[in-house]
């Protein structure tokens, strides 16, 4: 007899606008409080205290334009946010400050979330959609020097880059970029040479979101259609479709794999969050709480496994926090 799906552990209200981005920062020990950053359509970034369930700070750096990406850079004191005002802002939040230390003008009016990768102490690589129509630019932060610009070949007709992920096998190997495009294909780029290593058409519609598991060299992508596509990377750095999974309703906004690689969560346009087992993509649960499209999902980085949480931000202005499969 299957149990009914659990209710949210708690719900954060008060953003006042649709929530587009979420990021946890709970790795620190006591007395640091676990924190959740959320980016909203009204341009605010809220810093939520997960103990009191209230907003500790509100950051306003994007001039009222929607914030669609928030990431931390090595701890909760350094924050990166990307907004529709074509800016990526770097924040310094230590000791109660809320100031923008640096910003990058992307000249891109799209919705593609940028991706970060730490390559060395204090040095980061960031990939973002660039000014040119199908281009992705990789910058080094905090120096803001351009590492490379990845342009698909002429006539490839990939469309806009929709989602990006930077990764590297280990600290010494070269960084690689996975990019999902508007035409439904996922491309693996080599940053050093600025060339595409492999291209795979996974979907008939734009790739909305993707995530990648380094250890298994397997990734998953979601689109505006009803299919989730799982693909793998073989030794020759070629992408191959491994499996597809058909959903009940069309449209996925966000996919994320939990850090322990056991489960993954998808945010759906049908207001539901779906949990799957990552090994075999076994459907595990359908969390039906929100009353509008769920825009983003994020797993927390708690050190203690039993405290792990899942957060989902939706167009209905609410952030639901779930504790699911925390025991395994």
């Amino acid at each position, binding site marked *: 007899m299957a149990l009914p799906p659990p209710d949210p552990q708690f719900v954060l209200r008060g953003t006042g606008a649709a929530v587009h981005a979420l990021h946890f920062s709970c790795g620190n020990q006591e007395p640091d409080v676990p924190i959740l950053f959320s980016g909203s359509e009204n341009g605010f970034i809220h810093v939520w205290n997960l103990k009191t369930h209230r907003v500790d700070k509100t950051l306003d750096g994007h001039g009222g334009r929607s914030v669609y990406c928030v990431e931390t850079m090595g701890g909760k004191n350094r924050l990166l946010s990307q907004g529709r005002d074509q800016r990526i802002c770097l924040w310094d939040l230590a000791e109660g400050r809320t100031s923008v230390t640096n910003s990058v003008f992307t000249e891109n009016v799209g919705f593609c979330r940028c991706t970060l990768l730490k390559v060395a102490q204090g040095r980061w690589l960031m990939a973002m959609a660039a000014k040119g129509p199908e281009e992705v630019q990789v910058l080094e932060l905090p120096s803001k020097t351009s590492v490379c610009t990845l342009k698909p070949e002429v006539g490839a007709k990939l469309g806009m880059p929709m989602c990006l992920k930077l990764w590297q096998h280990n600290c010494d190997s070269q960084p690689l970029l996975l990019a999902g495009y508007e035409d439904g294909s996922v491309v693996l780029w080599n940053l050093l040479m600025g060339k595409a290593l492999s291209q795979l058409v996974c979907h008939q519609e734009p790739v909305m979101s993707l995530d990648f598991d380094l250890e298994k060299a397997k990734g998953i992508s979601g689109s505006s259609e009803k299919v989730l596509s799982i693909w793998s990377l073989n030794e020759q750095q070629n992408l191959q479709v491994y499996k597809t999974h058909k959903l009940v309703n069309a449209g996925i906004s966000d996919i994320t794999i939990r850090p322990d690689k056991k489960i993954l969560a998808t945010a759906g346009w049908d207001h539901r969050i779906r949990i799957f087992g990552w090994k075999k993509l076994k459907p*595990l649960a359908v969390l039906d709480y929100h009353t509008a499209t769920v825009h983003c999902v994020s797993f927390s980085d708690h050190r203690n496994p039993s405290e792990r949480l899942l957060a989902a931000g939706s167009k209905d202005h609410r952030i639901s926090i779930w504790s699911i499969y925390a025991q*395994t």
Partner: protein
Amino acid sequence: VCFIPDGLDCSISFVSHVLGKVCVHGRQKEILSVLIPRLTDLTKSDCIWQRICWRLVECVPDRWMEAVVLGFVQRTPGADVLSRLLGNLVVKNKKAQFVVTQKLLLLQYGHTTAVLQNLLGYLSLDGLRRALLIKVLQELLETWGSSSAVKHSPPEQQQYISKAILICLSHLKEPEIETCRQELLTSMMEGTKCHLDSNLPQIRRLGMIVAESISSKINTDGPVLKFQYEEDDEARELKSLLVQSPPFCVVPSLPDDDRNEKADAAVPLVLESNKKSHTAAPVMPDEESDAELDSDDDLIPYDMSEDKELKTKAPVYIRDCIEVLTGSEDVDKWEATVKALEGLVRKNPAATREVSVELAKILLHLEEKTCIEGFVELRQRAQVAVLTTDPIPVAKYLTSQFYSLNYSLRQRMDILDVLVLAAQELSCPKSQGKTKHSGAQKPCIQLLPGSDSSKDWRRIVDERIKSKTRRFATGQSQAELASSPNEFNSVAGHFFFPLIQHFDRPLTTFDLLGEDHFVLGRLVHTLAVLMYLAVNTVAVTAMGKALLEFVWALRFHTDSYVRQGLLSCISSTLLSVPTERLLEDMTEELLETQSWLGDVVEKDPDGDCRRLALQNLLLMENLKKKLRTVPS
């Protein structure tokens, strides 16, 4: 009858005479039931007996030839036997040829399929006779393809001819088909056209089946003609005639043993293969279970039964529905509205009455925007709901649109269907627990769009007639049914009279009395049903009088579907109008109608028309009787 043929010349003409005389006097059964099995056995292998048999039939005088040939054709067990018995009689004897090729096929149609198989098989078995087969086929196709034959000959005859054509086709060989390919094609085209023009579904189907068969024979490679029709036993039987099964002979004992041996051999093979598959099967699960073991078994799924497709919400107000249906680009919303409309209309009668005509207009012109299942039915139910909620204005609108320009035939027929369904709904008392139909007295009228409705209406009216007739005869009293006011009473006239008004005024796009006789047929049936439903209403007498005049004007219509409708109109009038009113106000019309009915019973080619006319006459008789028994 025993002969000693060795070396003797005997004359069998005497026997032929006897045979002929006996057959012509109608004793075919007695003599041939003895003679034919005997001759079948004797002629099986003995050529001399065959020749004797041939001489026997050849010597029958011409005036008795028909009876003898008919008897033979009917009683022999197979075409090959007939061939042995008759030999080339048809080639040698003119009378026999006439009987076989003309009379049995074109002038008579009461024979069974087996007889046809015998006859045509016989013609196909010999080279000399095959020429006759081709000739027969040509003549059959000519009849099949003639539009006047299709219109005026009874359906049974048309079916007989179609069967004959199919059997002929099954006997044709390639070279013969080659030579008459062009002819076959031309007759197929013409014939199909006439058949599809007909209003009776049975005729249309016959035409379709024969056309498909001809097409499959002449186009062995390449695309063949394929129609869509209802596959029932009759259709299957017809199609089976196309394939000739090899003549099965009386089974000698040897082949039986062979078959048994083969069966025995087959069984062990099957067992062996089963065993093999069993050993193969266990190997598979092992591999799979290995893979299963290291899956995430520790993650127990939750209950996901609530995970269903998202549905868009339909509007809740009628006026919102109107907005969505007329302007909205949102396809999901449009779909949801169409599905929810009928329920909304019924739940909000007051709101519907405010916009009833507008809603009726929108629904009449509503086209399918996306592919919804059951769109036609949904639209019709919504229209019926609107009509029953606000009958008078909407009926006025619909009946006026029936005779307006620029509507498709489908829309005009939709109007008729909606009027009938609404009338039925209005006239039936809202059942308080018990169903209004008790037993077989008043079966529910299933009025679905489609040409089958004619059959249903007829059936219903027939059953009603039957039940009523019984009631008059036995004079039993009926148990009282729960009653409530008949809402159709106040609006019956609004439904009926506008429809009957303009039938003889042709418009540029719509001519009831001309080409659009299918719609005329439907109109007539609609009027019959409206009349039937108007029983016990105030307007029924006026309706009856108008209907009888309408019937009188159209009584010589060439289309049998229309005539059947007219006869149903008369039945409905006789049943619905109270007898006193019938005999007082409509005596002349009744007398005229009665004489017409008598004519129909005797001379109408269509069997259903004759039957309906007869029932009407019986009804009239019963009415007269009833009036005589009631003390005035």
